[in-house]
């Protein structure tokens, strides 16, 4: 058994250069002046008043443990990291500023986390021993902003006490059942639009009036007046785990590796045709899972509301506003890798003039499970955000190139 503890402070060197200089780039115009497209330059970026190092102070306490004749091993670590003077975006300034807010050492961040790794290995006796080992790795961390100059308490930027990854949104309250309910509910929901004319019909979404002002809106967008929004989830991946194992008996060997995330919320978000289908763009893909789960008078409990085009795309539309019901649980468990193989007996191999030889079959990403699959199976929880910058930059969430399933059959030979 071993006990470890460490404490230290480091600077962050991972910051782009020339942040302290006013620089003016020269670019060719898209406009024709005097018969040519001349070069132009314009006002430099606004630089911060004084910069200093971003310092991360880490306290780490850990233990390494080996028990039962080294068959059981355990490594555990707990750490807390305080980042002082984090180099980050400044507070949003009024539009009349006319430039991007200068970055600066504006925030402090505190991260707490832990890591555990447990392993077990063993070997039976005899002429054909069975040896195996398994290992479980589990880790988690959580970051909180402890300082940021945000006197208005705006929730679209950092604020003191904010947990990194928090998602603000409206809370769903089912669907409007019928015209009577639409006429009598008495809560003005016109801030969130169902169409250009904004006439609510049965099957449209009801939102909860959290602050009881009979109006659904965003208030002042601040902590003291968030309207009807609240923290509905957190997008940071939590409880990341991996589980791997190896077995070997009589020249036959098997290994596997599972990997996943225990908790993570995902808002399908902007231009995500794979999730929203026709709700995003009516001429777009029609995922079968969506088509079979659309509200109608015969199917009033469907997952998706009344069919309306562009409601997941246009600003402030019914499905475009972040809301609790369609927040996805993007936890997952994936069999990343499994290998089955056989080492040819040494006697056979040596006769053929080889040192050793093995044949094997490997599969990658063969199986995945995620709670999200209950509603849509079109997205890969491991690469869920954004789109591939090489293939279709900016095409919307869920448009990343998915992880491929691959199978490999191999022969591995080493000659003397």
């Amino acid at each position: 058994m071993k006990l470890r503890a460490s404490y230290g402070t480091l600077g962050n060197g991972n910051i782009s250069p020339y942040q302290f200089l006013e620089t003016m780039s020269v670019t060719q115009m898209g406009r024709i002046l005097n018969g040519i497209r001349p070069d132009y330059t314009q006002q430099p970026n606004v630089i911060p008043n004084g910069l200093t190092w971003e310092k991360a102070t880490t306290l780490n306490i850990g233990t390494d443990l080996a028990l039962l004749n080294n068959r059981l091993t355990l490594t555990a670590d707990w750490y807390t990291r305080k980042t002082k003077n984090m180099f980050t975006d400044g507070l949003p300034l009024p539009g009349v500023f006319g430039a991007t807010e200068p970055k600066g050492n504006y925030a402090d961040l505190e991260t707490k986390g832990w890591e555990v790794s447990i392993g077990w290995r063993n070997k039976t006796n005899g002429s054909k021993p069975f040896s195996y080992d398994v290992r479980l790795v589990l880790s988690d961390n959580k970051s909180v902003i402890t300082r940021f100059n945000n006197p208005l308490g705006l929730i679209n930027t950092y604020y003191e006490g904010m947990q990194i990854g928090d998602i603000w949104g409206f809370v769903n309250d089912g669907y409007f059942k019928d015209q009577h309910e639409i006429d009598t509910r008495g809560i003005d929901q016109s801030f969130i639009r169902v169409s250009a004319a904004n006439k609510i019909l049965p099957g449209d979404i009801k939102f909860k009036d959290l602050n009881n002002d009979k109006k659904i809106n965003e208030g002042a967008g601040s902590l003291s007046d968030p309207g009807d929004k609240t923290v509905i989830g957190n997008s940071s991946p939590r409880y990341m785990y991996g589980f791997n194992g190896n077995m070997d008996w009589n020249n036959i060997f098997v290994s596997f590796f599972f990997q996943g995330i225990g908790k993570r919320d995902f808002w399908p978000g902007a231009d995500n045709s794979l999730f929203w289908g026709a709700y995003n763009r009516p001429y777009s893909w029609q995922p079968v899972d969506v088509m079979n789960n659309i509200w109608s008078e015969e199917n009033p409990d469907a997952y998706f509301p009344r069919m309306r085009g562009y409601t997941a795309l246009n600003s402030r539309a019914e499905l475009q506003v972040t809301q609790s019901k369609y927040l996805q649980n993007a936890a997952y468990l994936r069999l990343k890798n499994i290998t089955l193989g056989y080492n040819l007996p040494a006697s056979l191999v040596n006769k053929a003039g080889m040192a050793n030889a093995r044949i094997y079959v490997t599969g990658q990403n063969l199986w995945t499970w995620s709670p999200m699959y209950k509603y849509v199976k079109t997205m890969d929880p491991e690469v869920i955000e954004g789109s591939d910058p090489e293939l279709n930059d900016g095409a919307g969430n869920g448009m990343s190139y998915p992880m491929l399933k691959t199978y490999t059959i191999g022969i591995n030979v080493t000659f003397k």
Partner: protein
Amino acid sequence: MKYTLFLVAGMLIMSACNRDLDLKPFDKLSPENAFNTEKDLQLYANSLYLDLPDGSDIVRGDALSDYLVGRTLSNYIYGTFGPTEATGWSWSALRKINYFLEHAGNAKITDEAKEHYTGLARFFRAWFYFNKVKQFGDVPWYDKSLAADDPDLYKGRDPRTLVMDNVLADLDYACSHIRNTKDNGASQITRWVALAFKSRVCLFEGTIRKYHPKLNLTGTSNDWLDKAADAANQVIEGKQYKLLTAGATDQNYRNLFINETPNSTEVLLAAVNNKSLRVFNDANWYWTSATYGGRYSFIKTFINTYLNTDGTPFTAQAGFDNIPFAQEVKNRDLRLKQSIRMGNYTRDGAMAPPDFTYTYTGYMPIKLAVDAKATDGVAENFNSLPLIRYAEVLLNYAEAKAERGNFTAEDWNLTIAALRQRAGITGTSLPVTADPYLQQNYFPGINDPVLLEIRRERGIELALEGFRYDDLKRWHLGNLLTMPYDGMYVPALNTLMDLNEDGKMDVCFVEKIPATKVPGVYYFLIDNTQFKLSNGASGKLQLFGNLPRKYEDYKYFYPIPYNEIILNGNLVQNPGWTN
């Protein structure tokens, strides 16, 4: 000797240190080396031009106007619109200008050159603030680039009078210091451009103060109108520009819009497009595609204002609303055939009647698009589009003088008569009776026959060029945006119609699409909800009567984006707008 060596070595090391640790990027300029020579100033000043509208902006300029109807109605007049949707509170162009003004003085060049570039920047600042004032009314005035901790970031709005006086001062400086040369490429700001723009700004300000008594500035209106007339007159007296009349009477007008090289006989400033430099606009795509474009077409009420060739109003005859398309477009102001598809209009050698897969009314615009079909589905039009042209200067001059009450017969001949003669109209004498059609449909309360004709002329001459909504605003006629949308006259249902008399049938209005169709004919479904005929089974097309439009008085001033009100508590929202 030994010590000297150490000293030299030490100096070398130290100087090396300095150089290594204080490097500047090689691929960028810094404020110290960007404002020294005239070339430097030119390099920066080029960036100011990026804030002028480009060709594709001009094409969309009249999307919100009273004379066009399209696929969708603007949510400004139909549906929900509020501060959360509001845009346009962008100030980076102003920072760019003020930053230049703060640094250009450091250049080691002649005073004349300094003043020229200062004038240029101040022209652009006037352009910037004129647009802000038109959109929002009162706005905060800044003549410096703001630091991140400047308390002025959080100031409230300045009164319209202060901002517009500053705009005027900027323009006066620009007019007297920008170099006085004509740009035959029509791409650069010259003194002539500044004067013409000044006439636009002053006419706007003079008339909005006159027709919006709520601003409490009616007493200052005449002063601005005089300035408008004076600035326009300087351009006229300068004799550098004139109306383009060199070619055929039925082509001169449209030649201003469909050619690659802007015609600097008449055009002072253009968004220049060019095929070999690959600078394009999307006019053809926008004006022919049913899905990409807005499907905007003129309404009949406006088309009715085009005069007959002899100078008499089309609306003077009885039953002017009951004439079939092919007949009503004959013998009209020649700008009509240069603005819409009609008569013997052809594309790539084939007759091209109004295309009802695009148009709703029959009056399908062609003014800004070219006749070749090659760019109908791609943003590669290379026709240059005017931003300021001499015809506008004449119209500004005429209107300012008429509003001021000192418009003469000589002025009439110089302005409106000249524009009409260019359009092939023969009878162009000074009008003596007020046109009742204009009074009823457009300008109730205006009794001056000349002013009515000036406004008619402005609508027709500058149609689609992005002036209309501003004109309606300053005339206090925003409610015209809610006028009924009407289209061409339909003599009978289920009757094939030939719109360009080429012997081929083009369109048929039906209440039910027939099972067998005549090839080449578009069947327009009269569903009696969105699309109706005024007498039921015949009459004028009536469009979107089921969608109620509204233009309340508070909409003259656009809302400040909601987010900005939150960020700056001193910024007060325009009255009437709620979140």
